[in-house]
């Protein structure tokens, strides 16, 4: 069972919610924000192992290449170009699609590999912690996500802490999700970005519930939209300086009884409403 935790807007509390829920539910925690992963700051895993993520890129056999230029014409991403006496590869533009290999009339291209990031895996007690890290300057993170999310233990609950936004990275996380928990905050920005996230999970047909963070009962900013759309709320977290301080220090909230109860409540609701 994979549960994705996502939000359109950044900084709404995805990591706070997924790390605390992971500890409470004894669920595996998978940090999918490979550009800026933060979950390990809170969960402090032990016994970390690393595995580099490689992508395939074409390698051209210069001796046999006739410079016909078919590979250059076929590449939709402008990753190949024909200089005076050789074909040049711009590896960061390459999507590893293999069209150039198919197009080469004399089979002078084969795949080789290059590293774009790393996956780190560790343990905290019984639970599995994983994260992907994109190398600085690399534009494409999807291959890391795919490697990170394949072969997760199916019998267990895996919490997928998603990146912000609603584009290709998030779609790639949702491709592996059975249900989703959306996190928002009651502001004009929160509402605007929540709408986009809701549209996305609906389009992908993923059942979802909502957690409102920085909640304050006098703030009715989201009320109308939630009612109109019939969105199920699975929990609230209050707007408190204390939470911000605990977060800033990298502390886990459920160490305090008050928050442990709040998260228990959320966990129960998730089970009731979504499972």
């Amino acid at each position: 069972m994979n549960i994705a935790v996502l939000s359109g807007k950044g900084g709404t509390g995805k990591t706070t919610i997924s790390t605390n829920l992971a500890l409470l539910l004894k669920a595996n925690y998978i940090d999918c924000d490979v550009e800026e992963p933060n979950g390990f700051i809170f969960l402090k895993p032990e016994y970390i192992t690393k595995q580099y993520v490689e992508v395939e890129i074409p390698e051209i056999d210069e001796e046999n290449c006739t410079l016909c230029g078919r590979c250059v014409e076929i590449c939709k991403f402008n990753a190949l170009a024909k200089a005076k006496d050789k074909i040049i590869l711009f590896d960061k533009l390459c999507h590893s699609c293999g069209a150039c290999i198919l197009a080469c009339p004399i089979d002078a291209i084969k795949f080789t590999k290059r590293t774009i990031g790393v996956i780190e895996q560790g343990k905290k007690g019984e639970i599995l912690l994983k994260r992907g890290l994109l190398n600085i300057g690399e534009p494409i993170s999807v291959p890391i996500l795919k490697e990170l999310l394949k072969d997760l233990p199916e019998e267990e609950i895996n919490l997928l802490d998603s990146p912000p936004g609603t584009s290709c990275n998030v779609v790639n996380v949702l491709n592996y999700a059975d249900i989703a928990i959306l996190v928002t905050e009651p502001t004009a920005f929160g509402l605007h970005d929540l709408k986009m996230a809701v549209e996305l999970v609906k389009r992908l047909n993923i059942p979802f519930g909502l957690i409102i963070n920085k909640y304050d009962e006098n703030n009715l900013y989201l009320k109308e939209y939630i009612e109109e759309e019939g969105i199920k709320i699975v929990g609230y977290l209050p707007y408190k300086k204390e939470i911000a301080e605990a977060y800033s220090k990298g502390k886990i909230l459920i160490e305090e009884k008050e928050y442990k109860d709040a998260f228990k409540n959320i966990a129960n609701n998730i089970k009731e409403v979504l499972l």
Partner: protein
Amino acid sequence: MRLAVISGKGGTGKTTIATSIAELENGSVRIDADVEASNMYLYYTGKDMDKEYFSASQVAYVDLSLCNQCGICNEICKFDAIDLGKVNELKCEGCGACIISCPEKAITLVEEKTADIYRTEIPNGNIFRAKMEIGADGSGLLISHLREKAEEYGKNTLTILDGSPGIGCPVIASITGNHWVLIVTEPTKSGFEDFLRVYELTKHFNIPAMVCINKYDINEEVTAEIEDYCKKNNIPLVGKIPFDETIVQSINELKPIIYYENSKANQAIRNMWKKMKEDYLKI
């Protein structure tokens, strides 16, 4: 002068700060480059002047009357995006490998909409923004295109770009070619870590960066760590903005924070902008 505001981590206050700076510099051109969750333009009720269809990608299209269900495309596709003539548009990257392999020549590529782009005219300038299709590809290219459109309007003035979180393609497209980058961070363990990664990115592309610590008083210890790091690495720390509840009010009233006279954040942002202008941007 082109300035991009970025942060690495989401929710640190990029939009609040970018909008404030744009308000303080009359006539500035604004680019709302957090195209997946664009918030800057929400502050304004402007007039949408030019609307443009933008496509940054293509997807495979199968003519089913020609397809004989041989399944070769299934095997060839590296993205698991095609299955016996059915294309999953969210997975398809438009590479065209299936076209080469199809014995019946049943596959072509068709344009896929990425976004609608707008130039919105507001009383004191222009704002360039996009409404992206949900789940669409090509946010980096979209940002590049927004920047190109903004270029003719920003020749003699400040262009300020409100960036997206992260360090991937949209951020790379947001920062390259700028004169300066302002990194907005917050004094949390996560904020600091994300700041370090995004700072590395600006170094990688050789773009000078300055730093501002938002909500600096929620954890003075981490603030001191960030300050220390900036000093050691010669990164100009141009502002420290206090935690201020007026900011939430400002967002919900959709009125930039600099119009709240009693706000502490307002004063700090004004001081920061003065310093940025005089000491670094020299405009």
